[in-house]
């Protein structure tokens, strides 16, 4: 453990130098608490999960991440740091656990797949654990995903799969008969990348081919889920000074809460924010005008970011507080969820801000018994991409989501010259469209 600690500390130093970012007092602070919890992790395979949650309302908020990433990316095909850290690495780490929870087939996806002619070649872009591969036994499926561990799970089940990026499919044009993109586009952090992913699907199918796209909606049927998410916003991007900000050990056992801190935030939230500020007062030095968000981010740092945390240049890379919540599908945490409800902003209060909020971190709880010591989770804890929650007995990851407002998918494809929307619907808190390639 000591060695581990020292190693990670050195790594931190080097990393920071490499990025030449201000690291303030963080650099010198060794936080034994970070490592202590790690002892609790049992060594085993990883696991994973993702929620089919959505949230909601329909107004499109200017997407800060989008703009930032446009600047920092040399190409729309270059993966932004936020996706690497809060999508790819997370799914890689939680793949088996995630997969163990991904089996329910959405009826509308099933209907779509069953409607395809016998003998069709169906491309599943971002296939995850491959739950739709082979769904229609009269069709042939090829799945791809950027997560090697998820693709490995598909391959072990006998599916035809490859590791590839949905924004840059390695397919020649017009070879597929149909394509699906299920719960994928919401993990892309810029509008250009989301558009590009759709372009790629259209390109890959033949003329007349159908493409089903589903994304999480802002308008979640279960509004309480949204309270478990961490909203990302411009303030975080602009003012968050990074995980290297002064670290203060909070003496209280903190319940990190979801604070809807949007620019156009509603007054109702000020109350919540104030109460949180009060709660955190005295434990965390404020270094920013945006007291509440920074304080919560301090908590994020305390609880999530170890001395080994990598500094990341992208302003959108690390932000946010953690949310002590579980996925809607992990029963083991239901008790905790109940007990937390009293401390969380109420659902109704969240509605107003959620209307304009589309950028989130959505937590994934990887139970300790599924976390691999010395594996991905241990690394993630060391470098600050995951956090331990001893109360829940889980390693908590954050996954980046851009949830879609009503009509947003249609707007994304409205300028396309070679595809038209032939159907659109709302299903299980997801916005869905079916495109047809026309040229």
């Amino acid at each position: 453990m000591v060695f581990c600690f020292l190693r990670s500390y050195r790594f931190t130093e080097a990393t920071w130098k490499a990025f030449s970012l201000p690291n303030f007092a963080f650099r010198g602070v060794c936080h034994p608490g970070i490592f202590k919890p790690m002892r609790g992790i049992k060594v085993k395979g990883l696991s994973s999960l993702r929620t089919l949650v959505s949230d909601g309302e329909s107004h499109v908020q200017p997407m800060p991440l989008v703009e930032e990433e446009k600047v920092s990316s040399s190409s729309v095909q270059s993966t932004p740091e936020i996706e690497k850290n809060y999508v790819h690495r997370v799914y890689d780490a939680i793949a088996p656990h995630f997969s163990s929870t991904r089996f329910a087939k959405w009826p509308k996806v099933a209907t779509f797949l069953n409607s395809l002619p016998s003998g069709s070649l169906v491309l599943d872009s971002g296939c995850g654990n491959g739950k739709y591969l082979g769904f229609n036994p009269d069709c042939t499926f090829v799945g791809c995903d950027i997560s090697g561990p998820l693709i490995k799970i598909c391959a072990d089940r006998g599916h035809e799969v490859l590791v590839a990026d949905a924004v840059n499919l390695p397919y020649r044009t017009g070879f597929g008969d149909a394509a699906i993109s299920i719960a994928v586009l919401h993990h892309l952090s810029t509008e250009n990348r989301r558009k590009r992913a759709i372009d790629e699907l259209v390109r890959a199918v033949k003329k007349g081919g159908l493409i089903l796209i589903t994304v999480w909606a802002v308008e979640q049927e279960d509004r309480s889920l949204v309270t478990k998410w961490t909203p990302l916003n411009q303030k975080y991007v602009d003012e968050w000074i990074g995980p290297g900000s002064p670290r203060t050990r909070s003496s209280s056992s903190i319940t990190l809460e979801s604070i809807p801190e949007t620019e156009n935030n509603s007054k109702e939230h000020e109350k919540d924010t104030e109460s949180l500020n009060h709660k955190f007062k005295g434990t965390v030095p404020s270094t920013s005008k945006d007291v509440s968000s920074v304080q919560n981010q301090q908590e994020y740092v305390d609880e999530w970011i170890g001395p080994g945390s990598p500094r990341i240049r992208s302003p959108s890379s690390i932000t946010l507080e953690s949310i002590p919540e579980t996925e809607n599908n992990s029963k083991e945490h239901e008790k905790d969820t109940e007990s937390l409800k009293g401390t969380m902003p109420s659902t109704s209060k969240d509605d107003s801000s959620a209307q304009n909020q589309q950028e989130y971190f959505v937590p994934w709880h990887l139970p300790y018994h599924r976390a691999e010591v010395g594996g991905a989770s241990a690394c993630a804890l060391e470098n600050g991409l995951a956090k331990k929650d001893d109360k829940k007995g889980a390693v908590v990851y954050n996954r980046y989501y851009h949830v879609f407002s009503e009509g947003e998918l249609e707007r994304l494809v409205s300028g396309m010259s070679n595809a038209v929307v032939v159907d659109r619907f709302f299903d299980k808190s997801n916005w869905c469209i079916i495109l047809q390639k026309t040229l």
Partner: protein
Amino acid sequence: MRLFTHNMLSSNIKGVANGFPLRIEVDQVVEKQVDFHPDFLRNMFPKLEWKALVDAARTMGYTELPEEADSSMLESEEFLRKLHHALLELHLEEGALVCPETGRKFPVNKGIPNMLLHEDEV
């Protein structure tokens, strides 16, 4: 990776004009029998790059495909059986796919091609 997939894959490295077909480097080929599915074969045939398929099958050790093919051959059960075997029953288990323009190798391990590009390739 099976050969109908190979017939679809193309190197998408930035600047590559024609990334198809990827050359196959074979370390290990595995054969697995699957159900015969003529609908799929008839549907795929018009989209296949035939020469690429013939070359790929040969690389994988299967030489029964004719050098030339046209749609009238789809009436032949014998032809369909050969096509079925080539497209669906030969698996590149270990090896690599090589970009025809740049020589960049995409590894294939445990039957899974890794087509991810590096930062400087997009």
